[in-house]
């Protein structure tokens, strides 16, 4: 297992993957074109390549990394639940559902929220790694 890459590399790669997916989704929803199928195929190939890179970027996971990641994931899970709940309520509510003029815009909003949470995850990991998680 290579210790050249760390969990931070993996989290950064997650952000890049989600950002790429969001950009493709935005193009699909707001810039319709005859090349739509080509764009989706290109996205699928890139995602497969990025997932293959995930295993290479795994790095050395020792107990401190695992504990920090567990604490980070616990906080981010809470924010994810809140975000998805708000989006669900907004898209289902009678007074707010008009804000989402298509299912595609709901998808873009969900992906945007996931991107923000992924960035928060990396920030929290770096923060707890610097500050320590006990004492």
């Amino acid at each position, binding site marked *: 297992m290579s210790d050249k890459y760390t969990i931070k590399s993996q989290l950064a790669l997650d952000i890049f993957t989600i950002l790429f997916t969001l950009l493709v989704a935005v193009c699909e929803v707001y810039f319709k074109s005859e090349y739509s199928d080509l764009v989706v195929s290109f996205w699928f190939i890139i995602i497969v390549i990025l997932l293959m890179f995930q295993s290479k970027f795994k790095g050395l996971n*020792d107990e401190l990394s695992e504990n920090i990641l567990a604490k980070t994931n616990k906080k981010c899970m809470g924010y994810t639940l809140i975000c998805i709940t708000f989006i669900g309520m907004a898209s289902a509510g009678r007074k707010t559902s008009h804000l989402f003029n298509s299912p595609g815009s709901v998808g873009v909003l969900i992906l945007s929220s996931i991107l923000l949470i992924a960035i928060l995850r990396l920030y929290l990991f770096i923060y707890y790694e610097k500050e*320590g998680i*006990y*004492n």
Partner: protein
Amino acid sequence: MTILKTKIKEYREKTLMKQTELAKLVGVRRETIVHLENGKYNPSLKLAMDIANIFDTKVENLFEFIEEDNN
């Protein structure tokens, strides 16, 4: 409130060992050793015992709990 203090740095410097070398011997990252020496991380029992074995000493000699004076 009690805090955990370690003497890992003293033992390491006595044996002229670098943080990287100690990390490699116990199978953790160098950052973990840094956090342990600075008292920012409480190790698992296994890690504590592995480090104690490296320095041929007991866990109690490496780690001690100290009452923090809040006044």
